[in-house]
């Protein structure tokens, strides 16, 4: 199922990338959109709070004033508050599904996953209490149903639902309490959101300006054409018959009319437990974490700045070598992507005098093994237009692409490839061209593998690919796990290009 889900996401990505370009593709910014909607909810909530009055009748009247009398500001803010909260639920569930489909919840990523799942509870606590304090018919339904549901837990001495028995039994202090919860829950949520991004470097918490503007305009249009309104004042002497639910937050409430509340608590407990245990339910085999070789580490810090997970840091030197710092790997954060090895300037395949051991690498897939693998697999290629393909374990199954005179090496992440290997392959005449493929742009399994690789080739990021290397003999196509046909076409076209380049060289020699 995971595989099909991933393919579905990748196909959807293609559609949105065609419309928005990969740089502004909303499907590649689902988590970031969550942050964006959160801040809209906070900003609009602060405005609403200024005018909100806590009290049995005052609560409804103050919201009505905002919605009707002050429709141009308060009404728009109310709609922003509601619709951004709803959009938050949509993007968070999509974000969660996407990370699940990409297997991004194992090992060191389990912490982030767990914090994300726990954030859901606070999103729901924030949303439901928000509807409660409006004190309209929907609030009446939610207040009574929720308190009846809470009463099914053997935790409360007195029935909470009794507070909503009749207008005479209802106290304004209840609203004060729920306003407090409605403010406290989003604050705790913010703490969890902050924890959620602690294990990654350069988290994307700001949307591209173009996309942010588009979303704001969409919310504004929705707020003006279909403003959020109340459903009439709550009247406890009348039963709630038909009510317009916010299905993003209240989809499970109708179940309370069908099943005992305790069953629903058990179902939610089981569902949350399963989600929390996901990293251990579906285990994933991973490589050993990156290892430092102090004799080859001069503490340059390239691995530190390239690691997408904050797993490498610089510390004071512990040996006799004349450098001030050395790289240190945090085993709890390392996901064994190998990007650090690709960033290490000592991962140089040209080295002959000493054994090829870089300052940092993956013990299960060393740079020396990679060089040997490149040399060995290239032997099957003969003649002209030989293409060496580097792919990643999370992108296309390039190893199964049966194109004459090509060979493929799959890396844990394409960012593990030191740019000097491209120079090595071309200058040592191991192949006539190098083709790079892997995850989709903006959707790299290890976040920055594609970006760093591109920047190393274009000379924007250290270690650079030498200028002497002909860029015409390098091609890239970031396809993800779909578009296999297009990948084959791209490789064939690259071979044709190499053939013409080879002909030019031959002609020149003649």
């Amino acid at each position, binding site marked *: 199922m995971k595989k099909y889900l991933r393919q579905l996401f990748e196909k959807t990505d293609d559609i949105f990338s*065609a419309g*928005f370009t990969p740089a502004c593709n909303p499907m590649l910014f689902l988590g970031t959109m969550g942050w964006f909607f959160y801040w809209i909810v906070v900003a609009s909530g602060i405005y609403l709070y200024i005018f909100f009055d806590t009290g049995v009748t005052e609560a409804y009247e103050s919201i009505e004033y905002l919605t009707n009398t002050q429709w141009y500001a308060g009404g728009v803010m109310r709609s922003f508050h509601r*619709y951004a909260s709803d959009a938050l639920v*949509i993007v968070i569930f999509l974000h969660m599904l996407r990370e699940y489909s990409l297997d991004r919840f194992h090992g060191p990523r389990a912490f982030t996953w767990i914090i994300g799942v726990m954030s859901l509870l606070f999103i729901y606590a924030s949303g439901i209490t928000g509807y409660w304090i409006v004190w309209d018919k929907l609030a009446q339904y939610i207040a009574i149903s929720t308190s009846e549901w809470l009463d099914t837990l053997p935790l409360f*001495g007195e029935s909470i639902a*009794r507070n909503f*028995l009749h207008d005479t039994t209802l106290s304004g202090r209840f609203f004060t309490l729920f306003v407090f919860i409605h403010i406290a829950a989003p604050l705790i949520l913010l703490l969890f959101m902050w924890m959620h991004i602690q294990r990654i470097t350069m988290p994307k918490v700001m949307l591209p300006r173009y996309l942010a503007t588009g979303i704001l305009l969409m919310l504004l249009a929705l707020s003006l054409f279909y403003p959020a309104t109340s459903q009439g004042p709550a009247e406890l002497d009348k039963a*709630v018959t038909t009510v317009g639910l916010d*299905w993003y937050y209240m989809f499970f409430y109708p179940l309370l009319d069908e099943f005992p509340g305790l069953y629903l608590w058990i179902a939610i407990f089981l569902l949350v437990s399963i989600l929390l245990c996901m990293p251990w339910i579906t285990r994933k085999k991973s490589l050993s974490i990156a290892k430092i070789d102090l004799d080859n580490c001069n503490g340059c810090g390239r691995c530190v700045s390239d690691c997408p997970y904050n797993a490498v840091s610089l510390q004071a030197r512990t040996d006799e070598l004349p450098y001030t710092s050395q790289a240190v790997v945090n085993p709890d954060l390392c996901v064994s992507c190998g990007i650090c090895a690709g960033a290490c300037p000592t991962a140089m395949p040209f080295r002959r005098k000493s054994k090829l051991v870089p300052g940092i690498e993956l013990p299960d897939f060393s740079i020396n093994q990679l060089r040997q693998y490149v040399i060995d697999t290239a032997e099957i290629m003969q003649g002209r237009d030989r293409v060496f393909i580097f792919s990643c374990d999370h992108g296309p199954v390039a190893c199964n692409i049966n194109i004459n005179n090509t060979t493929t090496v799959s890396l844990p992440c394409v960012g593990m490839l030191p740019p000097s290997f491209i120079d090595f392959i071309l200058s040592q005449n191991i192949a006539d061209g190098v083709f790079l493929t892997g995850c989709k742009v903006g959707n790299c399994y290890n976040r920055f593998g594609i970006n760093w690789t591109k920047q190393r080739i274009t000379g924007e990021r250290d270690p650079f690919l030498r200028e002497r290397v002909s860029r015409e003999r390098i091609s890239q196509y970031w396809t993800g796990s779909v578009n296999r046909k297009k990948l084959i076409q791209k490789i064939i076209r690259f071979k044709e290009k190499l053939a013409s380049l080879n002909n030019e060289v031959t002609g020149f020699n003649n």
Partner: protein
Amino acid sequence: MYTPRNIVIQITTYLVFAVIVGYFSSRPEYEHLDPGMALLKISFSHAGEKKEECRRLTQEELEAMAPNMRRPLECSRERVPILVEIILDGNILYKEQVPASGLSHDGASTVYEYFRVTPGKHKLVTRMRDSRENEGFDHERSTDIELKPGQNFVIDFNKEAGGFVFL
């Protein structure tokens, strides 16, 4: 630079997203209760009598106690469960023996139930036994009521106010 095709895709995306967000934020409506029905809710929190009567301690028993622990009466904590009966038009709508809350059964007995009933005229009888007696009822109230569609009729209990209260 975006092409007209890009712009069309973007506007369509925003439009679809806005419709999905806007529509499901309050639609489709959910029918919690048939608008043609009324709701009869019984809810109260009331403590039954102590299960055993307090016993006056004998002089010997008092002397056997530490001076600071001496008290004239010894009372058990446990309370009797209350028996509640609601009869609507001669039919028993609710009959339950409700235990006292708390681990030692020394708290109030709490009832919270609701029933969907047809609107119109009804004869309502409410009874409760909260004493150690085995038969009969300690509190009873009967009345004729006329329920309107969508009405929420509440049966509460307040001993100080004379027993059953209809709201």
